[in-house]
């Protein structure tokens, strides 16, 4: 069943032996409406019920601004760290065969499966000043637990599977002849990597980065244990929203929620557009 045909009509990109466009599209709209759009709309509605003055006052609170900075800053930093080290991990897992590779590969998914609170508590025991790594770092004068660094560490942990899992297929699909061509043309290893390999996997890297970042912004469970939750210092946005809710300030919570929604949406949109442009450049989309 192909929808309206003709110029500008809605239809399949390419004729397929499995049509059913109308049915599938109907379900898509219904599903997205129920699961995504409706709750978002509710959020907008409850935020909109607040007078504009109150909205602006909430947004201007120094505590809110600090939390915003921490949430987005730490998520951005964690996603960047993951982009670098996740690439190395994905590289090692796809390029080399070594004993224990499968075990290591399975380990990557662990942050997905573990309840976030459990990973939070585990991080605290390791990074607290009495912990395994924490006491060693304390000796160097570095505090991780109960600082912004702790927040970042928690976000790195929960973000790593996103980067590794999106990069792995891209690295596997990479034609080895590309690197061989670069080498035969005289490129050194780092030149080959920077000029040939990296551009080819950048779309996947961006996707992984985006997913890790998005997850980091909204993360709650694993962060609150290691963050210490000091207002103005180590308080993240999701926590602030919960605090508002506990104070029965539903409107305030909705305003903050909406703010996060808008910021996240804008950032994700920008990254997605960047990706689309990249893909067009690579000729992956006609």
């Amino acid at each position, binding site marked *: 069943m192909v929808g309206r045909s003709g110029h500008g009509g809605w239809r399949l990109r390419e004729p397929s032996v499995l049509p059913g466009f109308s049915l599938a599209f109907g379900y898509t709209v219904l599903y997205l409406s129920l699961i995504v759009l409706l709750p978002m709309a509710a959020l907008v509605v409850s935020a909109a019920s607040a007078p504009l003055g109150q909205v602006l006052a909430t947004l201007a609170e120094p505590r809110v601004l600090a939390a915003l900075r921490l949430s987005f800053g730490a998520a951005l930093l964690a996603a960047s760290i993951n982009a670098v080290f996740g690439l190395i991990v994905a590289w090692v897992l796809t390029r080399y065969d070594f004993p224990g590779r499968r075990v290591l590969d399975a380990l990557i998914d662990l942050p997905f499966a573990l309840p976030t609170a459990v990973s939070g508590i585990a991080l605290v025991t390791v990074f607290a000043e009495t912990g395994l790594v924490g006491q060693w770092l304390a000796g160097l004068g570095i505090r991780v637990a109960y600082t912004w660094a702790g927040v970042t560490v928690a976000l790195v942990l929960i973000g790593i599977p996103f980067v590794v899992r999106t990069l792995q297929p891209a690295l596997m699909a990479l*034609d080895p*002849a*590309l690197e*061989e*061509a*670069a*080498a*035969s*043309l*005289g*490129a*050194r290893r780092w*030149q080959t990597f920077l*000029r*040939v390999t990296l*551009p*080819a996997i950048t779309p996947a890297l961006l996707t992984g980065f985006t997913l890790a970042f998005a997850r980091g912004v909204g993360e709650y469970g694993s962060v609150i244990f290691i963050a210490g939750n000091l207002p103005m210092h180590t308080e993240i946005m999701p926590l602030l929203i919960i605090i508002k809710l506990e104070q029965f300030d539903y409107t305030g919570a909705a305003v903050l929620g909406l703010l996060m929604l808008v910021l996240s949406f804008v950032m994700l949109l920008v990254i997605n557009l960047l990706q689309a442009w990249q893909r067009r*450049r*690579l*000729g*992956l989309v006609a």
Partner: protein
Amino acid sequence: MTAGAYHAQDEAAMSIQFEQVTKRYRGVPVVNGVTLEIRKGEFFVLLGPSGSGKSTLLRGVAGLTGIDHGRIALHGRDVTFLSPRERGVGFVFQHYALFRNMTVADNIEFALRIRNVPAVRRRERRRELLRLVALEGMDERLPSQLSGGQQQRVAVARALAHEPEVLLLDEPFGALDAKIRGELRRTVREVQRRLGTTTLLVTHDQEEAFSLADRIGVMHMGRLLETGQPQQLYRQPATRFVATFLGAANLLLGEATAPGVRLGRAVVYQARPARNDAVAGSEVVTVVRPEDIEVTRQRHALASSCMGEGVVAEAAFGGGGERLLVQVHAAANLQPATRQEPGLHPGLPSGACLLEVTRTAAESMALPLAAGDAVAVGLRRLHVLPTPVSSFLLRASTAQAVAALRQSPLVAQLAGSTQANLAEVIAAGQPAGAMFHGAGVVVVDNTDRTPADVAALLLHGARRLLCVPPAAALPRRVIIHCPDEALQAEAMGLVASLAGHINAEVSFVSVVPRGAPGAERAQALRRLLDTRAVVRASHGFDLRTEVLEGEAGEQLRSLASTPEPVLLAMSIGGDRREVETALARDVGWLFAPGTRSSLLLSYSGPRPAALAGVL
């Protein structure tokens, strides 16, 4: 070419030199002792079926694949251990391998940018190259905006940007359709002519090889079987494989006679002797190209010598020409040299022989033929293969034992790869009289034999004898031992024809007595090296050489006591007593039950009395 001529060649005139290059994957050689020299400015094509090792060899030149043994030199510079970056070659891949995130201009300038060439010169060179590959004005396109043929043109330009001494192309036209392939082929040939860059191209397409190459090297199972100019390889192949891989060929068994070659009932006269070692009466393999067969309605209308009469079994129109399948009657007694699989041609009367014939459009217009027409078949030209392996004769005392021989890994591999005829003889005890008149290679089981048995077989005409333990795995090494220099030429020919069909490495050993004077050792070494050069020149085949000290029997035995089975090749001569003594002394241990090594004997002693009377 003699050994002397080989060494006298100017090293500097050589662009690519391979010396005994071997590459193994999991112990199995995929490139096996390849020695080859490619001249400056030459267009050389490596031709072979997939899996023959040709791409591995090419990648070895570029340094993309390391080699396990041997040496590769570019313009006299040993590059065996250099990284791809340092070799200064251009490489073109089958699937283009263009950098998709870069424009055509950036792709072509890649090598120059790496070398920090100023932008002005880069642009100049890029324009020049784009003109060369007929892609002017495409500078700012992305690879995704080009067709396959255009992408490969860009890849060729990119590979030439840094003015490499050598251009390597790995199946560059494999992914393109026929018309584009032809155009690109012409471009590549033209570019190569204009720049004079030494070019090495790998392909499995013989038509492509013919149209491009100055010289062709044919590879099979990791070995470089033959090299030569296209026409020479087509008209005078030395091996069965090359004869059938380059174009279509009818392989027929013939018999060497004083004036020429007998094919069935017909004798074809030849000015030159068929084969230097082919004694009158011995079996030879002849190559008859489909276009060298003449077909007429009546025997007397033939302009060439008549081979027999038959009927057209099949006629197929092929555009510029016509392909016929002619079934020659059993009365002509033609013997195909390749096994006719039962069931492949149902309804083929026993003794009849199928010949492939091609005719030009003019010929088929002058004499239209359809399936079922009676015809006379004439032979304009034939070529006799120098290979001593014409067919295999399996001999054992019971049908069961013969079947075991046939199924032994070595025999199965040789039969499958050569496609030679396998005859079977069930006979008990020692042969009486000249039993093996003219036979190719006689195969027996060595686990239930004695040196005396084997001596009897050799003296009754089984001059090429392969003794195989039926249960043993494929040999991974061939060891040649020729104590008598006068007999070695024939043994080398035999080994060269068989070793191309098994994945084994070949070494030639000489054993000198323990504590022999230096002069004797030096002489043994010199003989090994000379033999190596001669074998290389006449069989296109490379040997490893080794001088051992001690007793031959003991040394051979210790060489063979490796976990992988060994094929020991020996030349042997003399009368019955001498043969028996030599066998018992040098290889007596090979006849013990449970042995896993095979023995290949080449006998050059007096011919059996019964035969001497006949000839």
